[in-house]
């Protein structure tokens, strides 16, 4: 996903001189070709994220479209104030490309696992928050971003995940339904967790008599509730699965949407990471399994009354 994103930035930069790439000590090989071909649109700055975000705000103020990449937490925690005040308050078209969303960096411990990024970033007015599920969606979103005047935060899920979304989507940010709109069990999810959810849906379809569907939300800023309201109303159980702490993410957004419509919230079931600093290491998958966010755990949750 990251490789696709960076390559897309390079392609966009070739077409549009307003596009610049800015990294924070990302390693010698990062976008080597772009560095050589478009040196004026490539910046590799030091390990100084507060400066980095202010710096790109200055570039954006002068008409550039900076795509900025570093590890998710170093944006959301280290440079939160710069994101809120320098970028969002001024509504500048900066794209924050956040590597290692969720438990991607599980082996590196709680300093590097970005499990609260949705909560932090969705609290910032004007900032649009995205969590694409595969490389196709990532690419389409970044192309789409070129004509959007608002600032963006984009969570990178992991690398090498299968492709589930069709390319050339007309509206890459809209919720995507997988299955019957009138299903008894409805999964709601975002980011790379869609792969575990779709596997769970397959498993349930093979073993259950009731229809099961899934909705993927590439964007968390606006859930477009009207477009799936009927599915929500029809479902007996709605499971919200996310690689995030229990509050401030997709579940919170869903709850607000449903509550605003005065609909039944009792059918909502939450599956998330705990509200804690996780001191186990292992892989991203290990953590999904441990917290019931893998396909087996999610299918089991769907069967539980």
């Amino acid at each position: 996903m990251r490789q696709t994103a960076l390559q897309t930035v390079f392609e966009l930069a070739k077409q549009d001189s307003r596009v610049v790439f800015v990294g924070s000590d990302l390693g010698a090989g990062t976008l080597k070709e772009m560095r050589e071909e478009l040196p004026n649109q490539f910046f590799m700055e030091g390990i100084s994220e507060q400066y980095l975000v202010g710096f790109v705000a200055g570039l954006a103020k002068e008409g550039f479209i900076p795509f900025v990449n570093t590890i998710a937490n170093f944006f959301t925690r280290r440079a939160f104030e710069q994101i809120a005040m320098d970028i969002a308050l001024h509504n500048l078209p900066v794209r924050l490309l956040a590597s290692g969303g969720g438990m991607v960096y599980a082996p590196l411990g709680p300093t590097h696992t970005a499990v609260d990024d949705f909560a932090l970033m969705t609290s910032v007015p004007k900032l649009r928050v995205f969590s694409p599920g595969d490389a196709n969606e990532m690419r389409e979103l970044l192309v789409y971003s070129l004509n959007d005047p608002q600032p963006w935060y984009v969570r990178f899920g992991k690398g090498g995940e299968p492709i589930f979304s069709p390319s050339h989507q007309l509206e890459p940010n809209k919720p995507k339904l997988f299955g019957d709109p009138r299903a008894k069990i409805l999964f709601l999810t975002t980011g790379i967790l869609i792969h575990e959810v779709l596997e769970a849906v397959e498993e349930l379809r093979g073993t259950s008599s009731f229809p099961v569907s899934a909705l993927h939300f590439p964007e968390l800023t606006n859930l477009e509730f009207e477009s799936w309201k009927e599915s929500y109303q029809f479902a007996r159980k709605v499971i919200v699965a996310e690689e995030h702490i229990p509050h401030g993410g997709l579940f919170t957004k869903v709850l607000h949407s449903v509550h605003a419509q005065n609909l039944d919230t009792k059918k909502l079931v939450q599956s998330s990471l705990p509200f804690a600093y996780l001191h186990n290491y292992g892989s991203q998958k290990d953590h999904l399994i441990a917290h019931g966010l893998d396909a087996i755990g999610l299918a089991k949750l769907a069967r539980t009354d």
Partner: protein
Amino acid sequence: MDDLNRHTKALEVGLSPDSVRLRKRLLEITKNTGRGHIGPALSIIEIVDVLYRHVMVNLEDTQSKGWSERDRFLLSKGHGCLGLYIVLEDLGLLDGLDLSNFCSYESNFGGHPESSTVPVIEFSTGSLGHGMPVAVGLAVAAKLKKESWRVFVVVGDGELNEGSNWEAAAHACKHNLDNLVVIVDYNNMQASGEISDVLEMHPLKDKWEAFGFETIEVNGHDREELKQALNTKKSTGSPLCIIAYTVKGKGIKKAENSSVWHHKAKISAEEIDSLILDLRT
């Protein structure tokens, strides 16, 4: 000349009629709320006034063709905004916005400057340590666009406690930004007292030079010295830092070098009137 002598000179230098007039207006404005960062505003008046009146170019009209070629100004120590507002008003750059209702609910002018409510303000500031990184971005943008405008940013000496300034200083030199001018309002005071009592910044000149800045020291209330330093055109590739020795509360005896006047609340209209009467050239 050592720091103490320079600060003594800054205290001793007299005020021009323009400087007195601007200070009177500043005090009048605070009548509305009875509060404000008066001390930090009084220390930057000559810096801002000389910049806007004698140094920066293409500021006449936000709608004009030349506006995109204007020099950019950022008040990183946003709490000194009264010092900026009165200069902008004096030069007729506020597009008719009413400054006399400063800090009231409907006012365009808050206790920190906002570009969304006052179009001539380049960038909203308030939380310290934000101006320099943004200024570096602006200066790099000018280079990329091959445009000749300069970027001026005023930072407070207390503000230099924030590490983001030094991150930006290192990058400004990396990018050879000879179109960037950092002005340090060195009034030697911060909210809790003297700089040295909170976090010693001395030797300030050595610090900036170690990063790679060309550094000039001036009396921050001496208009001629400021004019000369701010008009320094650079072509050596290094950014410029002007350390302006100033006095917090300059021009009002009871406020000078007083941390009480950093942010003064509950000032009565009568007290403000008596301060205005005390102002002398």
